[in-house]
């Protein structure tokens, strides 16, 4: 009798342990980063030190830009308010350390997705919010209209710690041109040095060139050469090791792009709830259980569209209307001749 009781208790104990484990994994599914973010009440987002169109602060400290909008979308999804973001301006050199050390939770700072960055340094790229390529800027008066006119001894200003530095070497080496690289830590310093005549050309991502041009003493005196020397897919990055948080950021970005595809905007999002198209209804939280998998409610995507807008709105507001790159180029929907193509949210 005694033995039976003993055995029974051990069986019960075993089940108790098993059960405890299963509830534990259910809870663990709720991301640690998500939990911390909700406890703090704001999303910690790393941005640039000022790149018009991507992430730039105005005089009163309000951040705008398409990179900023990714973080705002995540804040809208997980906290219900797109304004609950704490932005940390980072130099190219600081950005990855800030993310891996846990100082920020999203790095949305015109960062190029490469194999070594994705695989080596404890980061995960979640998508692409801007397809870019590296180019060169020169003074109009120099008469240079193509990179084929570059000569030995040319000096080129750029940022350190960027893919730009490596592409630049590949470019000049493959053409057998000797050059003088002058690499600064901050973008503002690069622009100041180029503007003063220290360098003959300034090289970085073309979007960056277009944006920095607007900051120069006399923008009309400079031109961006037509050649593109590299692929620079820019996108938000998260720490490796929190798959749920990774998914939240990825699908916040995807929601913005897909919303544009289906014509859902910040102004018509509410009325789309009664749409006949089930995919539209899923995108505004009126059908399916699209938030449960992330540990979020069902209207997380509706909030993104209402508070931040779709990708097209964000692009127009930040990049087109500010005169940086009025033409969307490859950053157009796949249905309209671009290469923006995201997996379906269903």
């Amino acid at each position, binding site marked *: 009798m005694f033995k039976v009781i003993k055995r029974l208790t051990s069986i019960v104990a075993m089940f108790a342990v098993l059960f405890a484990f299963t509830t534990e994994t259910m809870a663990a599914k709720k991301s640690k980063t998500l939990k911390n973010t909700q406890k703090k009440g704001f999303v910690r987002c790393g941005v640039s030190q000022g790149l018009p169109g991507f992430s730039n602060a105005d005089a009163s400290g309000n951040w705008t830009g398409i990179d900023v909008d990714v973080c705002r979308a995540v804040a809208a999804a997980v906290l219900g308010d797109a304004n609950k973001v704490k932005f940390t301006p980072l130099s190219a050199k600081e950005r990855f350390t800030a993310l891996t050390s846990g100082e920020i939770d999203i790095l949305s700072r015109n960062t190029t997705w490469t194999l070594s960055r994705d695989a080596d340094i404890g980061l995960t790229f979640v998508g692409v919010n801007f397809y870019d390529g590296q180019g060169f800027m020169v003074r109009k008066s120099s008469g240079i209209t193509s990179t084929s006119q570059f000569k030995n001894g040319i000096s080129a200003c750029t940022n*350190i*710690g960027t893919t730009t530095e490596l592409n630049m070497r590949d470019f000049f080496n493959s053409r057998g041109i000797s*050059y003088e690289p002058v690499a600064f*830590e901050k973008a503002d310093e690069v622009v100041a040095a180029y503007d003063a005549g220290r360098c003959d050309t300034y090289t970085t991502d073309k979007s960056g060139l277009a944006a920095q041009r607007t900051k120069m003493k006399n923008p009309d005196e400079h031109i961006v050469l037509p050649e593109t020397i590299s692929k620079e897919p820019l996108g938000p990055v998260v720490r490796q090791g929190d798959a749920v948080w990774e998914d939240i950021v990825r699908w916040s970005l995807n929601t913005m792009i897909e919303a544009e595809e289906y014509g859902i905007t910040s102004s018509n999002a509410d009325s789309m709830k009664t749409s006949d198209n089930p995919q539209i209804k899923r995108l505004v939280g009126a059908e399916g259980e699209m938030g449960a998998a992330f540990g979020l409610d069902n209207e997380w995507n509706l909030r993104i569209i209402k508070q931040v807008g779709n990708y097209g709105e964000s692009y127009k507001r930040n990049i087109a209307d500010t005169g940086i790159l009025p033409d969307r180029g490859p950053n157009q929907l796949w249905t309209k001749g671009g290469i923006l193509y995201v997996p379906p949210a269903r």
Partner: protein
Amino acid sequence: MNNKIKRILPQLLTILFVVLIFGFFTINAQVNMDNRGIDFGFGFLKQEASFDMQFTLLDYDGQDSYGWAYVVALLNTLLVSFLGIIFCTILGVIIGIARLSSNFLIKNSAAWYVEFFRNIPLLLQIFFWYYAALRALPLPETAEPWFGVTYMTIKGYFIPAMIWENLNIFVYCLLASFISIIFIRNYAKNLQEKEGKQLPLLYISLAILLVVPGLSFILGGVTLDFEMPVLKQLSATSYTYEGGIGLPPELIALVLALSLYTSTFVAECVRAGIQGISKGQKEAAASVGLTPNQVLKLVIMPQALRIIIPPTTNQYLNLTKNSSLAAAIAYPDLVLVFAGTAMMQTGKAIEIVGITMLTYLTISLLIAALMNWYNKKIEIKEK
């Protein structure tokens, strides 16, 4: 027994505490790096660096390894520190002595100089020399030559390069003349101590220094040619100089800012050292008929050096560490290249920051050891 334990226990606890703290940080870093899939290791030092550097003393190409990039960047740091230390010492000694001058104008300008450069943050001074002062320089095509053959432009200071033939013979001759000068000095010292005779040492030294290496040109087959910097057009409006040696404006601005800033502290050390010698020494020296120059050179300075050296060592260390501000103006030093670009490209933050810290520590300890040796050499030898 009880007393022994009482004495040892706190020390043991302290050691335990230190070990535990280090252990905690190591394990913490390990766990976190494991979680994020970051490997720890120094294998990256052998990988191809694949970035270029603007200014190097040794041959460097992007195909070289990160390890070589480290060496080349370290040399750039040492170059700036070396030049900075030389210039700040020369300037510091002049200003320090000038502050004690009896001439009102000299005394006060020196005091103003010290107060001005000492009280402006160094980074600001670096930015000033780089962006304001150097940027005011002419573009290459409009530069007027300095001394006929050198050109100071916004793209750097271009000087003729020396092309030697049989350089080694010349260097041997130079070495030989230095060694013979040392011998003659010792001989002269002995002569003076024993017989009271003075040799015209300065003239003899100069003569040796001119004649012996000069002979190497005539007899040793040494030749020296100059390669002049030549203006080259890059495009309709941009020019540069080709040939010769180009010192980048970043280097010039950095050395200028570092030596002007640190020289103020050196000047104060020099002033304190000289004032630390009692007035009686000066008066006694003057009373035996020494000239003011001799008083300074033979009586005051040898004693003052003992006071000057230790704090000046600190200033040299500061200058070396401050040279890491180079990162702000694109001078490719250790911090910009290794703790900047290399760290970004490899993502090995802990390893690279560790190496960089150890490097600065080693440089500082070496400088300190050298200065301590010099200090020992000149300190009062009790007989």
